[in-house]
């Protein structure tokens, strides 16, 4: 596994919508490299033919967790907008800055 570079960290930050400061970039590069190097030990485990576990209740075979797709009461629009940093409350909309720079 190649070691992590600042360019890698910038690429990941862009994917995650994080605008890191100049101080954070070298720090995260070092810390994330430490953690990923530690995680390298998993490569030594033989997992050929082993299925992945995404969720333990898939293995449990628990049935009956899906409900009928019927309309039910939901959160009133005013409540949904109440926490928005910027909203057009009368129109029932969240407001965001311009999309194109």
């Amino acid at each position: 596994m190649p070691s992590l570079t600042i360019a890698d960290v910038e690429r990941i930050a862009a994917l995650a919508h994080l605008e890191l400061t100049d101080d954070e970039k070298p720090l995260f590069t070092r810390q994330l490299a430490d953690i990923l190097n530690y995680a390298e030990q998993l490569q030594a485990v033989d997992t050929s033919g082993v299925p992945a576990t995404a969720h333990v209740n898939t293995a449990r075979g628990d049935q009956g967790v899906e409900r009928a797709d019927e309309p039910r009461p939901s959160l009133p629009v005013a409540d949904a907008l109440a926490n928005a940093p910027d909203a057009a409350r009368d129109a029932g909309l969240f407001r965001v800055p311009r999309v194109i720079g």
Partner: protein
Amino acid sequence: MTLVDRAARDLRQDIADGTVSAVEACRVTLDRMSSANPALNAFNHVDDERALARAAAIDRQRAAGERLGPLGGVPIALKDNLCVRGMRTTASSKILDSFIPPYDATVVQRLEAAGAVIVGKTNCDEFAMGSSNENSAYGPVHNPWNLDTTPGGSSGGSAAAVAARCVPLAFGSDTGGSIRQPASFCGVVGLKPTYGRVSRYGLLAFASSLDQIGPFARTVADAAIALSVIAGHDPNDSTSATTEVPDYAAGLNGDIRGVRVGVPRAFVSEGVDDRVRTAFDAALATLRDRGAVLVDIELPHAQFAIPVYYLIATAEASSNLARYDGVKYGFRSAAAKDGPLKTMYSRTRDEGFGAEVKRRIMLGTYVLSAGYYDAFYLKAQQVRTLLRRDYEQAFASVDVVAMPTSPVPPFRLGEKTADPLQMYLGDVFTVSVNLAGLPGVNVPCGFAAGLPIGFQLIGRMFDEATILRVADAFERATDWHKAAPPLG
């Protein structure tokens, strides 16, 4: 014994008998919180008015001759990642500093229906990410046994509040040990139920295949009562199980003769502090004296639990935390309010999230990204399967598994903050339980230089009854749970 020392079960009985009113119990609790909290910083938010009104309603209910619920009039605290309608809920993050939930978590509905009185929200690591409570945007919680020491994390405020006699019962969430480890560090009982036992609806999500809500208490019986209240199927959480909910407290009969306790000797042989080892060995001897049978077991893949956990949990977190973008709720960066939109997203997230949360979002994004998915994320999910099989094999021959909760006693605030990997390594005994979806309970079993030590009992899926029965039998044979911290 004063009112603040009363267990939840006894306090509820006092209120039912009329020897104490719910309002009186609530006032004593609020007084205790206001005297203890300046030193502890265990509470992010206290709502006196709401609590007293709720307590008065319980008293009216009793005066009208109605039967009180199983937690009738009992003051409780909730970790600040559980939504209460109209009560500020922050997950100890700047990004949710002003968030007022428009709905109740299912556990909140169930607790209030059972008569519990919510007095406030407890401090925690930001979005439940941490093992020391030092990642809170509102400052660390201090351990009531020694204020220079961490209470553990991420549910450090809930653990400290119960230990310091602020409340008899508190609730937290456990994704990789966030109930059991702070319970161990603060000397209280902390239970992580089976994945699916308790609805996660209204819990601010961290890692959805691992998160579970559970209680902190000073007795196993109180934890058992609390679990019976919060457990059960919920149509709002499709992963909540339909498995029947027993009366867990009724099963605590003190009899553990013939119960087979598995001890993964090889796994617990390395990297464990001598004082933790001594306390753990003494706990095993106590269980044996009560009639349990100790059996050596192997968990060959448990040594890989930390990397598996930190790859899976961060991958899930990177997805769950994508919703915090400065649009629907919470903080929006003032620096980018005029856009463009993508800059507003990234500035908001960089300013709103703390360092540990950003680190985990970055790690999770990386392991899910093209070219690394198979090597990291998929590999971790495969080893997760092997780990689950280890436990399945162990439970073919034992009823419970015992191991220390933390390899070390509580450490000093600031001791591990510079090195995230070192902090993660402390989760060695807790994370495998979440990965396998099993229930686990921390029980106090000793002290090291005045600081609590605990051990955990792990059960089969949906067999909380057995680990609680063993934990209760241990509690009956020991006095560790009776010790109160020196805090005045």
